[in-house]
């Protein structure tokens, strides 16, 4: 394989961005369709190239291809090299990113049709994909960080795509600022690692960490710093608040953010730096605990949301928590020497990434389904939906497939990766296992709550159900083919992606198709999931139980969940207003105005006062100046005559 191929994968969407921004938008704005086609073509090509890379990687020994790197920057003795990593992890990520992105772009053709900023949308989408691909391919922390921020920037631009809506603008700012908080830790960790080791190269850092060259508290703090970046990007507790708000962006953007790009970046980072984490018990424990807690914590909030996209958003947070949990527990195993080092490192990555891989497809599908529903009903509020099964059979079918998959019913995709995580949690961190297993139940409940509220029962909205007969307003209808087709593809992937040998490819264990059913763990989780589904059915479809009475009985809990544990309030009212604005910022303000400004103003004022006195010399009389010059000349001559 030519060494340019991985670079080309990154550059294709990037050039698409350049072309759209600098050629199509200024000169061909009357033909916005072009931008869509260019984006799809470039990402499609990138997908094909990714398959090529995958094939090459799977043939390579140790699943690693060595790529040439280049000297990029020389500052004194420091040489910063620029190169790409192509290993199994990167290859899998490339496939995930390009395929999901491609399908989302196709879907967007339909979803964004007629939007006045069509070209801008595709420009940002291209850049977003490009940044994510760059992040995946980067072989050193510096470039990884550059693309990391690029992804953040693009998410800001896309969440705030409809910036004229105040909510969207606010959500974009929030997403940007909250992830920034994590990024700060990440940047600190990068610099810390650099000063410790003198390198940005990830491979070197990994081997240094494994050899114990960093070691101890330093390593722990570095790992936690890196993890804080991941927490921000992957919306883990306590930086999870931005993700639900990010629903203000166009739905395909949500699909992309949630499935393949933005949030996946966090998990990918932890996976990429896994050897560093695995060298410190504290670090991996933190990862596992945060992941496990986030999983159940987000799921509880998902239970009560009425906005379909918010439910999906909390589900994403929850699932990301699973991934972190998976990485964390295997890491604990490795750190405690319960698993052999070599095997464990690959295993951890495999466990986490396998779920990421599966999750990408079904979560993208869920969002696209939600978008499709929105396309039909014009709302995201589930209370105004219902009965859509009849009008939108394809959407329903694919959404259902994705829901079963995320719940983890054999043999759909979610089952396989979730089982891995649960297994390892049981093996290495029993407490977290229980959190996870409860989360399985909760996941099943809220996903099927969505399914039942949206597709079952009678339509509760204001639109006309009977297609074509609508005398008032547009009628409900299935989405166009250009939207349904990607959903269909994703539905197939959501079913079968678990059967693909991704886990073993990454170095994890593989389970045979029926062999999985032999494990008791599978049955436990499936029974719990089924329970959740049943409860949802009972409450929302069959109405055996009254939702209202339940809500009354658990009123405090319901309030707690629906107010999202008051986290937004905590952050905005308490931390930002009380602590930051009233406390620290006020202190800074005082220091700034009194001390800093005081010194500056004092100097300036003194200068001004002195100037007021001295400026009298400047009479504006040219000849006065000339006289001064000649008196000076005479003085010099006099000096020469007297002393010379």
């Amino acid at each position, binding site marked *: 394989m030519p060494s340019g191929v991985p670079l080309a994968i990154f550059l294709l969407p990037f050039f698409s961005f350049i072309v759209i921004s600098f050629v199509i938008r200024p000169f061909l704005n009357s033909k916005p369709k072009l931008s869509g086609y260019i984006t799809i073509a470039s990402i499609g090509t990138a997908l094909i190239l990714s398959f090529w890379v995958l094939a090459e990687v799977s043939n390579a020994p140790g699943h690693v291809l060595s790529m040439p790197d280049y000297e990029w920057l020389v500052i004194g003795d420091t040489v910063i090299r620029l190169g790409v990593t192509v290993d199994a992890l990167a290859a899998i990520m490339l496939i995930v990113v390009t395929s999901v992105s491609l399908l989302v772009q196709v879907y967007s053709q339909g979803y964004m049709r007629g939007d006045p900023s069509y070209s801008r949308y595709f420009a940002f989408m291209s850049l977003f994909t490009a940044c994510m691909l760059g992040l995946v391919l980067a072989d050193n922390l510096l470039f990884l960080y550059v693309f990391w921020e690029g992804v953040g920037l693009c998410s800001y631009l896309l969440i705030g795509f409809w910036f004229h809506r105040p909510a969207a603008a606010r959500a974009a700012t929030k997403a940007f600022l909250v992830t920034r908080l994590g990024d700060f830790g990440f940047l600190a960790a990068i610099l810390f690692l650099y000063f410790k080791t003198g390198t940005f190269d990830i491979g070197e850092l990994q081997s240094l960490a494994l050899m114990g060259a960093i070691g101890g508290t330093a390593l722990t703090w570095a790992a936690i710093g890196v993890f804080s970046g991941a927490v921000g990007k992957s919306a883990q507790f306590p930086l999870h608040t931005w993700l639900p708000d990010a629903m203000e962006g166009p739905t395909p953007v949500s699909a992309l953010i949630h499935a393949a790009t933005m949030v996946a970046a966090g998990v990918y980072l932890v996976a990429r730096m896994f050897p560093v984490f695995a060298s410190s018990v504290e670090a991996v424990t933190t990862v596992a605990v945060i992941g496990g807690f986030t999983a159940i914590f987000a799921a509880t909030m998902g239970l009560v949301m009425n906005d379909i996209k918010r439910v999906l958003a909390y589900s994403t947070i929850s699932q990301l928590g699973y991934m972190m949990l998976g990485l964390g527990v295997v890491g604990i195993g490795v750190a405690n020497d319960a698993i052999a080092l070599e095997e464990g490192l690959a295993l951890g990555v495999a466990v986490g990434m396998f779920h990421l891989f599966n999750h990408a497809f079904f979560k993208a599908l869920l969002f696209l389904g939600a978008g499709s529903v929105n396309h039909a009903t014009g709302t995201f509020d589930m209370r105004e939906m219902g009965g859509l099964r009849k009008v939108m059979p394809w959407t329903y079918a694919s959404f259902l497939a994705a829901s079963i998959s995320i719940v983890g019913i054999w043999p759909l995709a979610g089952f396989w990766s979730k089982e891995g995580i649960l297994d390892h949690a049981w093996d290495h961190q029993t407490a977290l296992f229980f959190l996870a297993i409860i989360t399985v139940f909760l996941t099943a409940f809220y996903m099927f709550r969505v399914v039942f509220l949206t597709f079952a029962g009678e339509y509760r909205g204001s639109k006309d159900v009977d297609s074509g007969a609508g005398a008032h307003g547009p009628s409900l209808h299935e989405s166009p083919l250009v939207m349904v087709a990607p959903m269909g593809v994703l539905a197939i992937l959501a079913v079968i992606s678990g059967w693909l040998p991704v886990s073993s490819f990454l170095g994890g264990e593989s389970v045979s198709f029926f062999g999985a059913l032999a494990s008791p763990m599978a049955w436990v989780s499936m029974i719990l999931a089924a329970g959740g589904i049943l409860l949802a059915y009972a409450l929302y479809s069959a109405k055996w139980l009254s939702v209202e009475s339940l809500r009354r009985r658990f009123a405090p809990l319901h309030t707690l969940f629906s107010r999202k544990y008051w986290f937004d309030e905590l952050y905005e009212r308490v931390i930002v207003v009380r602590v930051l604005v009233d406390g620290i910022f006020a202190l800074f303000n005082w220091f700034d105005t009194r001390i800093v400004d005081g010194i500056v103003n004092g100097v300036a004022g003194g200068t001004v006062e002195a100037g007021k006195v001295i400026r009298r010399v400047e009479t504006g009389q040219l000849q006065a100046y000339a006289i001064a010059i000649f008196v000076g000349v*005479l003085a010099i001559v006099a000096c020469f005559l007297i002393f010379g």
Partner: protein
Amino acid sequence: MDNVGITASFWVLAVVCVASALAVVFLRDIFRAALFLVLCFFTVAGVFVILSADFLAVAQVLIYVGAIAVLIIFALMLTRGTQQGSPSGRFRFTAFLVGAVFLVTMILVVTGTDWQAITETPTGSTTSALAHALFSEEEGFILPFEIAAALLLAAVIGAIVLIREK
């Protein structure tokens, strides 16, 4: 030319030169002052001839009389400076003092220095010697010369830009 000729012409030229310079400074009629400036330039050209700098003498007439003096007269007419005459300003006593001290200093320096002058008249034309000094690539002033050309161009453009009606 022999010494008598040189001496006579020097004294004539010097007296006329200084007198016309004084006239430039002290005449109230500004147009006449400008004419005396022309005379002063002309006598300086004469001084150059005595100093066997024939090229410079001609250049002096060409540049100072032909261009600079004419420009100044033009400016006099355009600014109607003749209506106010040529009054002295508030610095005249200081200026006189500075000028006088400067003159005395210079005369002291000139007379007090032992100049190692070569009195023989240089032979041959200065034009080609000057051209060699200006343009020869090894020890010439070719770079300053080109910079001077650029300076002139800049001055021309600057003057046009300044004077242009908005």
